[in-house]
């Protein structure tokens, strides 16, 4: 009897042991593979959806979502700074210009005191109408993110301090006014605009300036947008190595060296 009890107990011990062992093998070797397969399947589904979208049927390469700038209601800033206003920092300018299509310039460039927070809303382009949900795929919202400042209980749009007319007047008269007058005009137009914009990881982090949940992103998407993944990419992009074959200056120099060598018949 005692022997039987011991055997039963030891069988239980062995089974517990074996199941923990099996679970460890699953966690270490099998679960990551299963997870990767699941993610790949989800990605494929999304991929199929995008490829089969009617607007992209005739495209050969373009399978990504395209975000189009609102040509009807461009920001007055674009009149001077162009549709692709970010050109200085080669490494991140594509990111920044891409953002300019759906984010008001003031989101990053507005003057703020240290740690000051604004309210952000999706506003239908050309209107004051606020989006109450995000319909369709990214890039199809026909709206931009606009910062608002709380003033005496009401919200004030921060992207409307400059009007098209002011810019128009400046552009028409800029060759006839003096340097001082031009400088004063520029100063006035850039009132409220900061010399030092916020950087990517000021918003794309947890408890960053923007609460992506309040912008109606799905919880998972909001988490991605404020996760360290985005910050990680941006941090890596802070040290971005462009192959020299794409740098015209280096290539011209090399070609000249080659030609000189040829001339000298080396």
């Amino acid at each position, binding site marked *: 009897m005692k022997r039987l009890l*011991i*055997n039963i*107990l*030891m069988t239980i*011990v*062995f089974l517990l*042991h074996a199941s*923990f*062992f099996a679970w*460890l093998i699953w*966690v*270490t070797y099998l679960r990551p593979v299963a997870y990767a397969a699941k993610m790949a399947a989800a990605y494929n589904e999304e991929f199929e959806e995008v490829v089969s979208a009617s607007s992209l049927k005739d495209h050969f390469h373009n399978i990504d979502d395209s975000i189009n700038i609102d040509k009807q209601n461009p920001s007055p800033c674009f009149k001077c700074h162009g549709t692709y206003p970010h050109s200085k920092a080669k490494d991140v300018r594509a990111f920044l210009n891409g953002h300019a299509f759906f984010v008001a310039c003031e989101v990053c460039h507005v003057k703020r005191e240290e740690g000051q927070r604004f309210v952000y809303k999706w506003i239908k382009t050309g209107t004051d109408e606020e989006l109450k949900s995000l319909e369709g795929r990214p890039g199809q919202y026909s709206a931009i993110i606009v910062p608002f400042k709380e003033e005496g209980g009401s919200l004030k749009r921060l992207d409307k301090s400059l009007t098209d007319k002011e810019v128009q007047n400046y552009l028409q008269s800029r060759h006839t006014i003096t340097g001082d007058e031009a400088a004063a005009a520029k100063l006035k137009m850039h009132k409220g605009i900061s010399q030092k914009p916020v950087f990517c990881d000021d918003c794309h982090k947890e408890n960053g300036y923007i609460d992506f949940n309040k912008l109606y992103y799905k919880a998972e998407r909001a988490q991605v947008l404020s996760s*360290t993944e985005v910050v*990680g990419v941006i941090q890596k992009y802070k040290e971005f190595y462009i192959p020299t074959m794409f740098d015209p200056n280096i290539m011209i120099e090399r070609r000249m060296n080659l030609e000189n060598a040829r001339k000298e018949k080396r």
Partner: protein
Amino acid sequence: MVNHTDKKMKYYVRLNKIERFQHYLLMLSIGILVMTGFMLEGEKIVIEFFGGAAKTIFYWRGILHRIAAIMVMCLGAIHIYYILFVRSGRSWIWDMLPRFKDAKDAVQNLGYLIGLRGERPKFDRFTYAEKLEYFSIYIGMPIVIVSGIMLWTQSSWNRFYLDIAEAFHRGEATLAALAIMVWHIITVFFKPGNYPLNTTFIHGMMSEDDIKHHHPLWYERLRAEEEAEAGGKKEGDALK
């Protein structure tokens, strides 16, 4: 089960009090560390089952894991002190040091196990397998301790190093857990002769028969020591 109260059988000390204490401490801390550590890999379904309590459970999980980690670090220090400054500890590490004989034993034992040799090699106090198991802790401990401290103080580390530390911590923990489960526990519980439990870790004794069978060279040494002692004093009983 070894019945060390059997009067007819002679028993020798295999693990002394300090060694048994260290083993208990290791057992307890590694047990807690494995359980609370692998909780992080817990299946979503199980965690969701606990609902709101999961948050509290995981809060205590973190604290317990760190307490056990401190225990294991103290144990490491105790053990190093033991093998350096205590007489029995010095004899322990001396008998434990790997020798050429161990490589030979491993090959010969393999030969015996696959039927190429008629008998097993004669083992001393510690077999090559016991030495491997013992020294794997020397490699594993620094890895888990250093990477664990890095993860504990993660706010002061670059993400790059944390990723490395995490990979090492998880990898070494998995290896150690599997080694203990597949090798050590199976041997202690289920090896023929030990089933249902090798109780040496409780009372520290090993029978003369077992020593003769498993550690014949050690037995010869023990006998020689006994005889030398009996030369001095007439009373040459078990070493205690």
